C-alpha cells in the first residue's frame, strides 16, 4: 500500500463520515418537518431559515446538557452501550457502493471506501452487532422499563433477522455474488432499469423492507422504545450525549438500510444518464442519493401513518408470515433460474430485455 493510496482512502473515510453524520443530523430535521406536515403542524421553523439550523442547535444542546449517570447502574456497561450501538452502525458505510469509478487528475478513484468479495456479509455482520448496544443499555440501566425494552428488542431483532437474511437470498441467486459492487453492476442492463425489484424480486424487496423496519426499531415495530408504555424503552435512563449517540445509531441504521435497499433492489447508482462521458459517475451519485432519500421519506411516511403492532402480532407476523414467504421466494427464484438456464430462455426474451 503506497502513501498515495493511504491518503486517498483516509480522505474518502473522512468525507463519508462527515456526509453521513450530517445526513443523520438532517434526518431528524426532515423527520420532524415531514411528520409535522402529515399532522398539519408547522414543525421546527425558528432556528435559521425554515428551521434549517435546528439540528445544529440540537447538537449544541446535547453536548452542553448535564450527563447524568444514575447511581445504581452497572457503570462500565452503561457507558459501553451507546458506543457499541453507534460504532457498528457507522462501520457499515465502509463497503456501501455510493457510485461508480471516477477519473480525477488522471487517477482511477472508486466512489466507495472499499469493496471485497463478501462485503454484503460484512454489512449484515455489523448490523447484527447493533443489537448489543440496545440489549446492554437495557440490562445495565437497572430499571424495569429499560429491561423490558432490551428484552423486547433482542427477541424482535433475532426474529426478524431471519426473514431479513432470507429475503436477500433471491437476489444472491440471481446475481451469483456477495460483492455489493458486482450486485450493482449486474443491474445495469435495460438502459439502467434492470433493477432487481422489477426483475423478479418484488416479494424479496417487500420482505426486506418490512424486516428492516423491525430491525431498526421503527414504527410500526418500535416496541423496544414505545413511549406510551415503556417511557423511553432501553434509553430511559440515558441523557445528554449518550442519548444522542443512540439516536445517531438509529438514524445511521436507517440510512444504511435505505442504502442497502437501493443497492440490492433498486439498482444502486444505475439510472438513465450514467453512461455519459465525464459527468456519468456524478449522475450515478445523484441517482443513488435520490433513491436513498425516497426510502428515508417512506420511513417517515410510514411512521406518520401506521399504528404500533401488539407484541404477539409482531411475533406472529415475523414467524408465520414473513419467514414462510421468504422461503417461498427462495424456492421460486431457484426454480425459475434453473428453468431459465435449462431451457435457455434468454434468446426468447423481448429485444429490450436482452440489452439490445
Amino acid at each position: 500500500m503506497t502513501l498515495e493510496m493511504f491518503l486517498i482512502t483516509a480522505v474518502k473515510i473522512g468525507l463519508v463520515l462527515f456526509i453521513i453524520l450530517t445526513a443523520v443530523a438532517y434526518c431528524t430535521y426532515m423527520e420532524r418537518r415531514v411528520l409535522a406536515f402529515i399532522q398539519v403542524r408547522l414543525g421546527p421553523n425558528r432556528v435559521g431559515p425554515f428551521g434549517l439550523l435546528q439540528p445544529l442547535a440540537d447538537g449544541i444542546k446535547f453536548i452542553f446538557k448535564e450527563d447524568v449517570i444514575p447511581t445504581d447502574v452497572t457503570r462500565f456497561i452503561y457507558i459501553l452501550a451507546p458506543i457499541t450501538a453507534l460504532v457498528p452502525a457507522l462501520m457499515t458505510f465502509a463497503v456501501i457502493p455510493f457510485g461508480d469509478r471516477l477519473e480525477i487528475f488522471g487517477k482511477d478513484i472508486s466512489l466507495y471506501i472499499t469493496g471485497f468479495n463478501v462485503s454484503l456479509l460484512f454489512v449484515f455482520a455489523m448490523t447484527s452487532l447493533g443489537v448489543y448496544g440496545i440489549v446492554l443499555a437495557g440490562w445495565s440501566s437497572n430499571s424495569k422499563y429499560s429491561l423490558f425494552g432490551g428484552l423486547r428488542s433482542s427477541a424482535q431483532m433475532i426474529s426478524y433477522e431471519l426473514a431479513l437474511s432470507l429475503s436477500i437470498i433471491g437476489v444472491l441467486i440471481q446475481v451469483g455474488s456477495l460483492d455489493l459492487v458486482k450486485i450493482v453492476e449486474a443491474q445495469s442492463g435495460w438502459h439502467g432499469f434492470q433493477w432487481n425489484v422489477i426483475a423478479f424480486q418484488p416479494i424479496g424487496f417487500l420482505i426486506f423492507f418490512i424486516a428492516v423496519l423491525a430491525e431498526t426499531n421503527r414504527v410500526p415495530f418500535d416496541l423496544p422504545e414505545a413511549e406510551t408504555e415503556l417511557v423511553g424503552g432501553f434509553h430511559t435512563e440515558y441523557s445528554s450525549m449518550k442519548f444522542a449517540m443512540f439516536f445517531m445509531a438509529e438514524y445511521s441504521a436507517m440510512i444504511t438500510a435505505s442504502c442497502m435497499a437501493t443497492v440490492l433492489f433498486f439498482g444502486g447508482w444505475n439510472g438513465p444518464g450514467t453512461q455519459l462521458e465525464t459527468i456519468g459517475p456524478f449522475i450515478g451519485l445523484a441517482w443513488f442519493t435520490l433513491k436513498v432519500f425516497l426510502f428515508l421519506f417512506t420511513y417517515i411516511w410510514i411512521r406518520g401513518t401506521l399504528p404500533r403492532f401488539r407484541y404477539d402480532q409482531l411475533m406472529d407476523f415475523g414467524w408465520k408470515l414473513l419467514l414462510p414467504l421468504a422461503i417461498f421466494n427462495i424456492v421460486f427464484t431457484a426454480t425459475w433460474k434453473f428453468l431459465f438456464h435449462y431451457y435457455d430462455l434468454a434468446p426468447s426474451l423481448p429485444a429490450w430485455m436482452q440489452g439490445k
Partner: protein
Amino acid sequence: MDTITSYLSSLTAEHYFFFLFAIVAIASSLEVVMQRSPLYSAIALVFTMASLAANFVLLKAQFLAAIQIIVYAGAIIVLFVFVIMLLNVRAEESRLDRFGALRFIAVPSALVLFLGAFAAIRFSNLDTLSPSPASAAAGTTERIAELMFTKYLLPFEAASVLIMMAIVGALVLASRARDVEAEMAAIEAPAESEAPLPEPEDRLEEVEVS
C-alpha cells in the same frame, strides 16, 4: 541482541496484526473464565469471537470470518444475553463461583492439557508446512458452497435435521411445564368435574323484598 533485532526486522504487517488479535483473543477468553457475572463473560466472549474472525481474515477465509460474526456474535451470544436478562439473577452471582479447592486441581490439569498440545505441536513437523498456492481460493464462498452441495451433502443435510430437532427440543424444554399431576388427577377422577349441575330451583335464592 542480534537475534532479537533480526527477528524484529523480519516482522511484517501480518505479524503485527496476528499478535494484536492473538493477545485480544487470549485476554478476552481469560476474562470469560475469570468474570463472576455471566453477562460480562458473554461480552468478553464476543470480543474473542471478533478477534478470531480477524484471524480468519489473516488466513484468507473471509466468508467464514463474516459468518463467524453473524452466527456467533450476532445470534448465539445474543441468545445467551437474552436468557441472562430473562432470568435476571444478580443476587446469586456472588454466591456462585467461589473457587475453593477446585482451582488447585483445575489449573494444573489445564496446564497439563496445554503442555500436551504444545509438545504435540513442538515435535511435529508443522513448521515445515508452507502455505499452499491454492490457499487464497480455499476461503471463497464458491469453493465452500461447491463442496457443501456435492461431496458433503450428507453432513449438510444431517446438520439441517439437527437444527430442526434442536428447535423442537428447545420448544419442549422452555415452554412452561404443565401441571402433570393435576392433569392426571383430572383424567382419573372425572366424576368430580362432571358432577351434575344443581337444579334451577336450587340455584335460586329467595330474597324477601319489603
